[in-house]
């Protein structure tokens, strides 16, 4: 077991900059009543951000190029069918991981 002081500083500062955006809205919103338009805007955040995160995982960004991660896109298609059919998160994730493991080891 070892602890490097640079690593420790990185961990401490990264934790700090991560926790601020997590808790700040909870502090700001406490004493405010948000206008209806803002609440409506916030109601679109889940679908938008989850779509963004799925797409982010399908992209490979390097220094000066942006490419599509075809294996991820390919395996996401059957995974989407499972997600739609079973409406079960665990089923979706287990199937996805299995399909990707099969793809990488066999194909």
């Amino acid at each position: 077991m070892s602890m490097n002081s640079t690593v420790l500083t990185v961990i401490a500062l990264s934790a700090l900059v991560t926790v601020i955006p997590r808790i700040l809205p909870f502090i700001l919103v406490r004493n405010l009543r948000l206008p209806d338009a803002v609440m409506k805007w916030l109601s679109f955040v889940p679908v938008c951000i989850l779509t963004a995160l799925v797409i982010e995982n399908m992209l490979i960004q390097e220094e000066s190029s942006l490419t599509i991660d075809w294996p991820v896109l390919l395996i996401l298609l059957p995974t989407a069918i499972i997600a739609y059919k079973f409406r079960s998160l665990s089923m979706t994730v287990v199937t996805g991981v299995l399909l990707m493991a099969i793809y990488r080891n066999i194909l």
Partner: protein
Amino acid sequence: MLTDSVGRSDSLTFVQGFRDCVPTLFGYISVGIAFGIVGTASHLSILEITLLSASVYAGAAQFAICALLLAGSPLSAIVFSAFIINLRNFLLSAALAPHFTKESFLHNIGVGILMTDESFGVAATKLKQFGSLSAHWMHGLNLTAYLFWNLSCIVGAVSGQWISDPEAWGLDFALPAMFLGLLFLQLEHVPTAKWKLYATLMLCMIAAMLGLSLLFSTHIAVILATVIVASVGVVLDK
């Protein structure tokens, strides 16, 4: 809580929060193990991996921190990357915070401090089903996720001595699969009258993500695209 006379599946108790976390656990476990393995491969000690997952508690940022440490990047660059990658949490917290204003300040901090994409996804779905959320339910959800995430990272760190390539096991794919699953759960609760609106917004998201990722880091693109397209949603929704 156990004597709760209300239908337990419909309550917002701590125990129900734990139950609602269970479907997401395989995702945390897969990615956590993958992280532990990558951490070990990046020459971090088990103690460092444990501290990182317990204090930063954010999948993508933890992977980036390992990669940048290994590459010998300056401290400021690593911390800035972690900040940018996790900045989207501001949006997640902002979307949920208005539903906790009646809870105490400490409960609010507690809910926010353990916010993840997955717990946000589950909470947003619960909100659509139930119409409200409670801090106790959220703590049950968050603490279960936090516990399993840290245990999985440690298991991965230990097994990293024998396994070097978590990708061969498909473990990294748990993340996109989980986001897709959460997205479908969200869409399930979209009223029929709004299907067209949501389809439009999702197409806009695809276009915005592709376009913005050409100009910015994908982590920034996630935030900008969401901010822009959610605004489009407000304009289009009458």
